[in-house]
């Protein structure tokens, strides 16, 4: 910084201008603040869930609603399938953060592509699991209007909120695929930085983060 010597008595600080006070690029900052905003749209839905649930006398038991597992027709596995889904999502978060790490630390195109591809696979498994779970519940009579397990509100809240989350997973998978193509084409090697992978990674972890609370709301509480 080439400030005039006359202003040097002012204590230098990170807010001085000419660079980011957080030492990160505007792109990453924008992704962070987008996620702050988006957490409020999920917040609105989950708050809706909480307020409505508090106004009800009784609420369906999660262990009663979610007890089926694909290909196991007559066996009851309470919370079994959702455990699998949760595991998939955590796993895909791990693969994503590994992709980010190998991009930032080593700029290793091969490793980034490998872990990003696994992340996409994880996302797709999660989405298909959700599709199966939805189909199963709908065939058993739980829809946007009815719920054979108890309060109808459980039905429409479940489909709306998990649907909104699934929509985020879906867009995350699409964006990951685009980034994977860019990685393979060497776009980020030419640019000299894998920051784009990191930004997408932030979004992906956010989706995982939201699932923690969706999972808590519908499957545990």
């Amino acid at each position, binding site marked *: *910084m*080439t*400030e*005039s010597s*006359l*202003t040097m008595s*002012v204590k*230098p*600080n*990170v*807010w*001085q*201008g*000419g*660079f*980011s*006070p*957080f*030492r*990160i*690029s*505007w*792109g990453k*900052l*924008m992704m962070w*603040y*987008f996620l*702050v*905003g*988006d957490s*409020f*749209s*999920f*917040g*609105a*839905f989950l*708050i*809706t869930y909480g*307020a*409505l649930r508090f*106004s009800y006398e009784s609420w369906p038991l999660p262990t009663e609603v979610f007890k089926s597992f694909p290909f196991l027709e007559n066996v009851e596995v309470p919370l079994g399938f959702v455990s699998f889904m949760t595991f998939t999502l955590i796993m895909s978060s791990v693969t994503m953060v590994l992709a980010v790490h190998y991009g930032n630390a080593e700029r290793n195109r091969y490793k980034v592509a490998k872990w990003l591809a696994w992340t996409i696979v994880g996302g797709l498994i999660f989405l298909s699991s959700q599709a199966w779970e939805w189909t199963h519940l709908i065939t058993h009579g739980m829809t*946007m*209007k009815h719920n054979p397990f108890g*309060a*109808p*509100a459980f039905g*429409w809240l479940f489909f*709306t909120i998990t649907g*909104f989350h699934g929509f985020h997973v879906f867009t995350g998978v699409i964006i990951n695929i685009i980034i994977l193509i860019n990685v393979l084409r060497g776009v980020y090697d030419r*640019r*000299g*930085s894998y*920051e784009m992978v990191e930004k997408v990674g932030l979004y992906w972890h956010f989706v995982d983060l939201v699932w923690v609370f969706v999972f808590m709301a519908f499957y545990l509480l």
Partner: protein
Amino acid sequence: MAHEMQTAVSSPVTDHVHFQTVEGEIREPEHIPHHKENFVTKYIFSQDHKTIGKQFLFTGMFWAFVGGLLSLIFRLQLGYPGQSFPILETLFGKWAAGGIITPEFYYKLVTMHGTLLVFFVLTAGLSGTFANLLIPLQCGARDMASPFLNMLSYWFFFAASVVMLISFFIPDGAADGGWTFYPPLNGLREASIGSRAGADYWLIGMALFIISSLLGGLNYITTVLNLRTKGMSMNRLPLTVWALLITAILGLISFPVLLGAAILVLFDRNLGTSFFLDEIFIGGRHLDQMGGNAILYQHLFWFLGHPEVYIIILPAFGLVSEIIANNARKPIFGYRAMVLSMLAIAILAFVVWAHHMFVTGLNPFVASVFVFLTLLVAVPSAVKVFNWLATLWQGNIRFTPAMLFAIGFVSLFISGGLTGIFLGNSALDIPLHDTYFVVAHFHIVMGVSAFFGMVAGVYHWFPKMFGRYMNHTLGYVHFWITLVGAYLVFWPMHYMGLIGLPRRVWSLDAYQNFSMYGDMNRFMTDAAMLVFFAQILFILNFVYSIFWGRKVTVKNPWQSNSLEWTTEIVPGHGNWKGPIPTVYRWPYDYSKNGDDFIPQTEPYRPGEEKLHH
């Protein structure tokens, strides 16, 4: 600051628009690349923040005209009840059969007047215009962080505008359930004519609008934080930038909640859910949709809705602070207090929303908490008012049209703010709610005063936008008619409201004891028309001055300190031809040491006293 810079030196340049490294250092290129621009990239799908700002301004002015016209039509009904205006039938057909507007049409007019003015004019038109125009110029940036997202922000706003405009022309007409869009009136297709297709258009238009303001807001925040020029520390930012930054933060946090609420209403209407519906009977038949709660929507709406009114007023705060300091030729009084009070207002914005719901059957304990928090808002608001007055005190005032509108803003903000203290008390709000007292309060404190801030900004920064001045004589006429007229329209509403005249009523004939206000209503309608015609004068002045106004010949026509006046008279893409100037002082060094003004780019002289960092 070597410790700050070491990491950045070796790191590659990742972004070719702003030359900012991954570590966030701004790099100036050797040569600023000049892309060949054609008509479409320069004027339509422009990525230049100044052009986008003008696009927001033009669209906002269009909606201001439409929204104002709508209010005139329903004021005709209120001022001249039962009187036939054949022209209305010619224009609106079945909606004004016999020259008298129908109740359904009245509600459409009121709903769309509110929606358009609150969101499309005073949110997008105000902060969209001035955030785009001023943030990069006053922070010392070549453009917004992401010019592309900035362009998308405008075009989402445009799409929202198109959807809203179409909704006027569909067979059932636009939405009619109030700008707050409460269910069940809006949550059920059967509720009224406007809650058929019109309400869906409204929801989709608002969803597009929210996306637009989020894209814009993210850009504003990151630009202010990350792309300030060297020396432009946060406490050297002009108050306009502070205000626009805080506005964007409010929008970023509150608009997603409205998006959520809008999605839920859309589901209630179209997918058979009942988030906001419970125990409803239509024609004696019990509705299947039940189990939700209509108050829930109001909570979600006002969690946005209250920050929204600060989103409207904060940019006006910023513009007015800048204009008053500049034209009083005095440093702004209490810069730090101004910033802190805006931050305090922003924080309080999120914890006072339920004061809009005192009579909905809110839990009384919750209501009492909200009364307390609401009344706290008076403190930072008063700090700001006293600071403006202290800035004016013994100033060497230049009464430009911008300055007049800024002073008018302070007057209106005081008048409207005082009635807010009445309404913030739940005990007083019970008799006053839903009367014309409320209408008077929010029109003066937020509607008209934010409009004054916006107009002041247009007069002040017109030379920067178009390189010409607006006509000052017309500006003075515009100001006096608008100020006096606005008080004449809205002041009497306080008295009507105090004796209980309800708002949102098509005709007061049903209430015998309100017939005493017939004359006053007619007077207010006439005053409203006068004010509206003064705005046409403004539009004429605006359009005329763009093409034929007096040319600006100096870089700094208002002898201002801030950075936007160091550029060319009409800056091109990239703002500064040479390197971006470095900043050495705050923007309010007016009348210091015998100098009329000292621009921010001027280093401190030996022995000069520092008024501020």
